[in-house]
């Protein structure tokens, strides 16, 4: 790749701290703007107002918000992400185990969905116009239209209550090779299933339309006409071109890693980062909220950058860096 790519990546990377600065300030102010703070919530209704006031004074909560923000930012830049007021532990010690659970879950879901969805999406596209069409379209559309909130209790009813196949929820703390790998336990089957099925349906649906779009193009007809075997045409010409828009979807999935599974986690009692973030908002655990939002934003922007760069590699027509001047 030419040096244009390097400067493009550098320019994009340079934007990340700026966005983080805006996002962190907004989040920080919103946290302080909330009606009660953690001191009040933890002290309970019977605590003396003077005590609460003294603790606030000690922790600097009575200082102007911008002073608190500058202090937070200073600490953040020196690698001190703050303390969870609920768990009384450094933020990273609380967040990392929860993040690890969510990452395990999502990575497995992403791998499974893409391995299954791309072939069946392509397969369905190649059979367009046959009697299978309404069937596959329906099969892709319906699961993609059932919100997780509705699907989870119903699948629970089927698999746990009626068939007694699986444990009802929670997360296993099974360890393999000294690392927590709950994903390999029976408890992980239900969340993976609940998240993977709509994901497969959605990706397959999108893949189908993309492949159909490519199939109609001239170069595919040329490839067929010059006598290439059908499967060579599909693999070498069709799939490669159909993958382009699909990659964007992949980026969104990567980006949703931090909080995307919040509903499954809440419903099945999985102690992941989504559920944890919700808890942090409710207990006004300021530093945890900040850390989760910043982490989420960094992951989101990184995923988007990876997508754009991948675009440039797959499709030489995409000239990165020139798009910005437009």
């Amino acid at each position: 790749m030419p040096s244009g790519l390097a400067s493009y990546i550098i320019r994009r990377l340079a934007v990340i701290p700026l966005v983080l600065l805006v996002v962190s300030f907004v989040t920080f102010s919103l946290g302080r703007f909330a009606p009660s703070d953690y001191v009040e919530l933890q002290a309970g209704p019977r605590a003396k107002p003077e005590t609460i006031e003294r603790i606030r004074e000690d922790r600097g909560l009575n200082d102007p918000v911008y002073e608190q923000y500058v202090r937070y930012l200073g600490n953040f830049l020196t690698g001190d992400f703050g303390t969870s007021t609920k768990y009384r532990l450094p933020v990273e010690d609380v967040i990392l185990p929860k993040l690890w659970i969510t990452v395990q879950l999502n990575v497995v879901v992403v791998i499974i969905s893409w391995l299954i969805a791309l072939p069946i999406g392509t397969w369905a596209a190649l059979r367009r116009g046959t009697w299978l069409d309404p069937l596959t379209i329906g099969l892709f559309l319906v699961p993609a239209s059932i919100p997780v909130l509705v699907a989870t209790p119903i699948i629970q009813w089927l698999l746990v209550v009626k068939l007694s196949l699986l444990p009802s929820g929670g997360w296993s703390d099974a360890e393999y090779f000294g690392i927590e790998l709950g994903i390999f336990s029976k408890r992980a089957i239900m969340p993976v299933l609940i998240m993977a099925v709509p994901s497969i349906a959605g990706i397959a649906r999108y893949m189908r339309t993309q492949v159909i779009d490519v199939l109609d193009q001239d170069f595919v007809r040329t490839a067929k006409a010059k006598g290439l075997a059908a499967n060579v045409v599909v693999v070498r010409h069709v799939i490669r071109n159909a993958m382009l828009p699909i990659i964007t979807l992949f980026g969104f999935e990567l980006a949703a890693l931090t909080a995307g599974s919040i509903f499954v986690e809440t419903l099945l009692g999985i102690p992941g980062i989504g559920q944890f973030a919700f808890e942090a908002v409710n207990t006004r655990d300021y530093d945890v909220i900040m850390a989760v939002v910043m982490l989420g934003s960094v992951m989101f922007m990184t995923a988007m950058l990876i997508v754009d760069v991948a675009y440039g590699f797959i499709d030489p027509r995409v000239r990165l860096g020139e798009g910005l001047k437009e």
Partner: protein
Amino acid sequence: MSTFESVAQAPFAPAASGVPRLLRRIITRPVAVGAIMVIVAIYMAGILAPLIAPHGFNETDLMHGNEGPSSAHLLGTDRLGHDLLSRSIWSAQTTVIISVATLINGGLIMGVSLGLLAGYRRGTTDFAIMRLGDIFHSVPTILLLLIINASLRDRVELWAEQISDFTGIGWIGESGMASYFLVFGTLSLFGWVGIARLVRSQVLALRESQYVISARASGASTGRILFRHLLPNVSNLLIVALTISLGGVAAAEVGLSFLGIGIQDRPTFGLMIAEAVGLQNVREHTHLILVPGAVIVALVLSFNLLGDQLTDILSPRRR
């Protein structure tokens, strides 16, 4: 957001196919008509809730809690004996209010105006609007929605009361009203970006066309060019994008209410689901989840089907 982009990639439909022509094409497709009928039925139920709901939304029948369907309660009751049919109808009202308010505020007012302006003015205006959009686009939406709704709730309620006292308009200060403003406000705040990008990309293509140049030459004001000349030509794509976004807004409202930070003091599908989950409920009172679940799935599915059909109609290559 990805839904808007997939629409944006569809080839641009020529200006000749106006809205009436779009409607004529829709009625020849049974799937599209069916989807519209489901959506209209649910929306009408919500709008007419005070007239058609057999029971009030807070009416309890404690002697008949958690019962399955019966002649007195057609879809059964929940733990407190709320009639589930009535609660669903009132929940539909919440969904309709939030969807329409978000559509008008985030989709039409913010999304369309900012998109038109960015595409037409270009330069600094364009840069400012699109970078602002980038910021909203690069944060985890659900987390920010959570934080905003949890942090601002009490303040907004207070403001609503004060505004109500000041202006003498009673309904603004009613309990729970503030949560409507908060929910559709935050959904709009994160929802306008996709629409604005779509409109902008179309306007960029159209702004150098003959009729826009001649309008500018004959001294038409920016506002007139934007709304009389450019807007009608992006209206078809806009209708598709907005239709698809309505399903997403409904799902988001359900999610927020489920977490307890959505609409307060009114029934919502999210609240109904929150009261229906848990292993014991799932085992013994399965109807609790089936009732709100069926309505939400019907609504989201219909919006998706309709969106598919509209995209089909508007993209010539797939016709």
